[in-house]
């Protein structure tokens, strides 16, 4: 096995673990938690344009 290959995957494994720890330390999951189906208004605003086009009309607000 080439040494460079081994060095590359070892480097990425170490870098990956460091990044994951840093991400948790910076509370990155809390950013992802901002968009959650339990927050219905925000969920609707976030997803509505995926469904139709804002302002064109016809897209009903279900609540």
């Amino acid at each position: 096995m080439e040494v460079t290959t081994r060095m590359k995957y070892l480097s990425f494994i170490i870098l990956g673990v460091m990044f994951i720890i840093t991400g948790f330390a910076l509370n990155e999951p809390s950013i992802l938690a901002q968009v959650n189906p339990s927050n219905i208004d925000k969920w609707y605003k976030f997803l509505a344009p995926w469904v139709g086009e804002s302002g064109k009309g016809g897209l009903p607000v279900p609540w």
Partner: protein
Amino acid sequence: MATKKSNPETSMFKELLTELPTKRIRFIRLISQISFFLLFNGVILGLSRVDVPVPVVLPTGAPFATMWGGFTALQYVLANGQFPFLVLGIFFLTGAVFGKLTCGWACPIGFWQDLIALLPLRKIKMSRPDNEGLQDLSGFFMWTSIVIAGFFGLQRLNGSLTGGEFWTFIPYGVIDPAGTMFVTYFYTLLWGVIPTQQGQNIFDVVGTLFLIKTFILILFTYISIKIPRAYCRWICPTGALLGYTSSHSLLTIKRDPTKCVDGCSKCEDACPTQVPITDENPDGISNTLCIGCGNCIDACPDAMSFGFRF
């Protein structure tokens, strides 16, 4: 674009049903794909959502999604003005250990492509330069999305932008066929975006974006039927990101050249992404097209095997 037609065999349904018992890896992979599909959409089974990104294509708005798709999460964190350490860390770690195995064994969109590839339509084999050259498209989509998300992230960081439309958070969502299939259509039906008045048609009700997304989905679906795993090969930004680490991954597919016969190309014929396996290093495939599906091992279990690059 130089292409050539494959052999007259047009249906893989028969092959799947009759040869599945003898194709050990393919059978295990099918179980794995179904299991991960249920796990990733586990809200319908009563599982809770967790705010953890995974290196597969899983649209954020998917109604039953239990996790975040990795590339979607990366854009969203970046667009909120923070460097995506956690997301990149997960990509680096899984890519360096497993390569693109998640594409072949866990990704719901990969599973969907495997299923539609079973439709009895004549398949097209790409020429090698086209197959490898078109991979640049996935890098283009990935970097364009990252740059746009990063731009809006900087705007939010210095306070010149608050809120914003969805595409400023997840730019790739505008064209993402997975989002169209799992999110757009679901909420279109759930929210009743259907013609309600006499004389009204669907085009009066839905927006232009809906039509564009539908067109893109139909286009990629058709291409993926004719060319197995076309989306994974050339378009998917998640796969492009994994590709940076997968070419030197710990887990790989090895070939024993002493057991190869001159002129035999069974392994290459079985590969859904057309990796030129016999030209690869026997100690491990480094081609970024390889999704670790193991079809080559099923085709030639004597010479091919999973192995580690210790």
